[in-house]
């Protein structure tokens, strides 16, 4: 049975252990979190007035990169929306920006049509305006996937590593060379006895095995335990990302199974 144990969690970051699954599954989950979780991001900007120093396209690019709080129950993908891709309140959000210098324009200055869909952080500097410079624009955000552009990617620094099983056999003469050699300080010496104290840090470099003259250290990589860690861009909570990714995987496999069954009937 698969189990999840959360080690660390806050609004933007999570670290957890997933146990009892194959590496193939762990990698699917990682890939699903990166490319199958849709988020809202600005992808179309109407600029009415920009007398500032920044070019329109740079400005549009910066606005596009700002993460927006995303409620996936509220919005449809534009391609799958009932408006057939024309753009309606259930597949896109409009954000307005109307400011005049001298001022530093922040992401919090964007005024959204939907009070729940606001920039995840309100203090990201977008541009600096000087005296008399003006900015008037309307940005349109829609849902998209990380495969299209990284601004739609909900996670960053998403990865996992194998948690190995390190056994120290009785032939160990407590020389302490492994404690010295290990770059991650996995081992420690407790009253002269060598112990594995920080298994999560192990990077499977096998330096301890190489340095051990008694060949007393055994490393087992096939434990089916993985240490996942990732950060989110603020568009949704880390746990929501995991849930959405798992649901996406489930849906795709259900679709695949359905097609397979049809094949066998014919």
């Amino acid at each position: 049975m698969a189990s999840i144990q959360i080690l660390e969690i806050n609004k933007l970051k999570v670290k957890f252990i997933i146990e009892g699954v194959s590496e193939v599954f762990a990698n699917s989950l990682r890939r699903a979190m990166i490319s199958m979780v849709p988020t809202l991001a600005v992808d179309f900007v109407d600029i009415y007035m920009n007398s500032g120093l920044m070019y329109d396209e740079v400005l549009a690019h910066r606005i596009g990169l700002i993460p927006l709080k995303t409620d996936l129950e509220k919005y449809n993908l534009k391609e799958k929306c009932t408006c057939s891709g024309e753009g309606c309140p259930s597949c896109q959000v409009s954000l307005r920006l109307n400011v005049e210098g001298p001022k530093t324009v922040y992401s919090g200055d964007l005024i959204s049509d939907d009070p729940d869909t606001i920039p995840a952080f309100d203090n990201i500097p977008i541009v600096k305006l000087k005296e008399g410079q003006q900015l008037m624009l309307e940005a349109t955000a829609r849902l998209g996937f990380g495969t299209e552009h990284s601004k739609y990617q909900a996670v960053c620094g998403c990865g996992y590593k194998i948690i190995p099983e390190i056994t120290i056999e009785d032939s160990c003469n407590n020389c302490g060379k492994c404690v010295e050699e290990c770059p991650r300080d996995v081992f420690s010496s407790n009253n002269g006895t060598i112990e594995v104290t920080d298994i999560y840090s192990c990077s499977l470099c096998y330096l301890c095995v190489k340095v051990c003259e008694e060949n007393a250290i055994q490393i087992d990589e096939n434990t089916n335990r993985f240490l996942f860690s990732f950060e989110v861009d603020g568009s949704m909570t880390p746990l929501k990302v995991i849930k959405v990714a798992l649901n996406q995987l489930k849906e795709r496999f259900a679709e695949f199974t359905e097609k397979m069954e049809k094949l066998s009937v014919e």
Partner: protein
Amino acid sequence: MVVAQGRGDRSPTGEAMFPVRCFTCGKVIGQYWEEYQQRIREEPPGKVLDDLEIERYCCRRMFLTHKEVFGELVD
């Protein structure tokens, strides 16, 4: 009308604002810039970055190597 896709124009004025996201990993870092700038006047930058929980060296170099020159030519 401009579609906010692709990499934008790499103009000297455009790139001189602090980037919204880390070039490498995509972490949103723009919101930390002003606090970072304030705090490095009195504290070592490495410590400030640790406090802000900016762990990876890709994000850290974004802060350490940025020089704010946006609009300086105009003044």
